[in-house]
């Protein structure tokens, strides 16, 4: 385990529906908070990395425009995208930039303004994050892909509707206390009662996933500032170190993938790399953020990360082991399900949550003295996967 690169500042805008401002103004919200958190000025920063999923706004090549608005020119800047995992990929790139010795302090800014287009248009764009030649012509969309995983889990691994509901109820428990979450209402199992016509969360989107199984689109930004060991020690009282990084990719087409009942291969592969690099295992993780874009995704994440054996992820939520009081607390900020999922900002937001936990600054969500935290951020339907492990 080496301590070469640290997080010295984190920030996040509120995640909202219909942000009243432009993408540069949205980006500035997270940037301001992270810079004030780090207690530095633009003079301390020697490069920036901007991350989002393209086509949700009109700006092409956003890095230059945003770097200017943030006061980060003439330092070098670039744009990174791996769909929903863009900003954790950005953090991996910035980690490499610092570890190589080329840069000392790098700002990673994730942003997404999704509300400029309708939900159907958004689904069409997200669907085109799948195979546009061979699958999109059938009318695919993200919920349908994850629904095929859920269906397979129900048929092969004993997953039930109640398990999926339980994941959403947990997410909402913490969404209620996260001031930056887009969905701050509590959720009860009765809200999923299919016999109740008033139960909006129970309406089917893509069998077996219901409205309440799907995360909410949102506008938002996140900012993570990384520094070399030398700069971190000079600039920061509570550096949080990056102990391990792992990343993987998988076939875009369902026809070339392993059976859906085995979950997402990228999580297994990226986790193996990150654990090895950090010199830790699943049992050492005190707190985790996982990519719960859909309830089924959280169950699969438990298995991919080794918190549960393959096919047994459901047992963790049944035993409430991933609640704050449990063996391995997961998504204490409400997760993508309640906090919201502004695609390019999500990875950075997850990292922020873990950094605050490790510093003891997570407020009502704070665990008692966690030492090692993990972030699981997935792009597309397991097309990309990043696992990042943090320690004090």
């Amino acid at each position, binding site marked *: 385990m080496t301590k070469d690169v640290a997080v010295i500042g984190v920030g996040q805008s509120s995640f909202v529906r219909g942000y009243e401002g432009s993408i540069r103004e949205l980006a500035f919200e997270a940037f301001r908070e992270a810079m004030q958190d780090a207690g530095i000025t633009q003079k301390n920063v020697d490069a920036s990395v901007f991350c989002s999923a393209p086509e949700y706004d009109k700006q092409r090549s956003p890095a230059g425009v945003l770097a200017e608005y943030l006061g980060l020119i003439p330092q070098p800047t670039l744009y990174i995208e791996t769909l929903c995992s863009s900003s954790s990929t950005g953090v991996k790139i910035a980690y490499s930039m610092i570890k190589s010795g080329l840069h000392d302090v790098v700002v990673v800014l994730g942003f997404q303004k999704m509300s400029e287009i*309708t939900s*159907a*248009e958004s*689904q*069409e764009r*997200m*669907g*085109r994050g799948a*195979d*546009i*030649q*061979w*699958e*999109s*012509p*059938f*009318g*695919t*969309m993200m*919920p*349908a892909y994850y*629904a*095929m*995983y*859920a*269906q*397979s889990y*129900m*048929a*092969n691994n004993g997953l039930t509707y109640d398990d999926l509901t339980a994941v959403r109820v947990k997410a909402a428990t913490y969404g209620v206390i996260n001031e930056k979450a887009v969905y701050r209402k509590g959720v009860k199992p009765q809200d999923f009662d299919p016999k109740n016509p008033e139960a909006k969360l129970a*309406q*089917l*989107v*893509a*069998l*077996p*996933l219901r409205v309440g199984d799907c995360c909410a689109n949102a506008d938002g930004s996140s900012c993570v500032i990384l520094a070399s060991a030398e700069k971190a020690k000079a600039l920061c009282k509570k550096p949080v170190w990056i102990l391990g990084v792992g990343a993987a990719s998988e076939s875009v*087409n*369902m*026809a*070339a*993938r392993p*059976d*859906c*009942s085995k979950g997402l291969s990228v999580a297994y592969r990226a986790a193996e790399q990150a654990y090895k690099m950090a010199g830790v295992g699943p049992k050492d993780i005190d707190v985790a953020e996982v990519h719960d874009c859909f309830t089924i995704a959280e169950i699969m994440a438990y298995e991919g990360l080794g918190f549960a054996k393959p096919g047994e992820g459901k047992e963790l939520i049944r035993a409430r082991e991933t609640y704050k009081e449990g063996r391995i607390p997961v998504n204490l900020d409400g997760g993508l399900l309640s906090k919201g999922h502004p695609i390019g900002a999500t990875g950075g937001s997850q990292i922020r949550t873990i950094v605050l936990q490790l510093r003891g600054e997570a407020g009502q969500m704070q665990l008692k003295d966690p030492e090692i935290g993990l972030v699981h951020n997935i792009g597309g339907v397991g097309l990309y996967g990043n696992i990042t492990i943090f320690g004090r």
Partner: protein
Amino acid sequence: MGFEKFGRKSFTSVTKTAKFVDILATGKIDGTACKKCGTKFFPPRADCSVCFSKDMDWFDMPQNGKLETFTTSYYAPTGFEQDTPYTMGVVNFGNGLKLFARLAKTVKTEDVKVGMDVGVRSMKYDDGQVSFEIVKI
């Protein structure tokens, strides 16, 4: 050109595998097989990722397999709204070959089960688009 005829709505028109659509119009669902190393691909590819050859042959996909998973979609992306609800799934033919497609409209959602025996066949939409679909056998 030619690939714009594929599926309910195609997003691309130019590909070296566009002949797939002509073959589909004759009722056959074909993958590509590398003439050099024999690796079989579905969906079809113009280039072999194993031996780098660009010398490919067409081969007929198996017709019967098992439904590995499925979903019925009640919402649709832009351009597909008029079709809802529709069911999509993955067929596993064994030997490493799988296929993703919609299930035929004639198959009722309540009759669809993971692991059931299914077949695949070519089909044509009223607007002239050609596709393939999964049927119960």
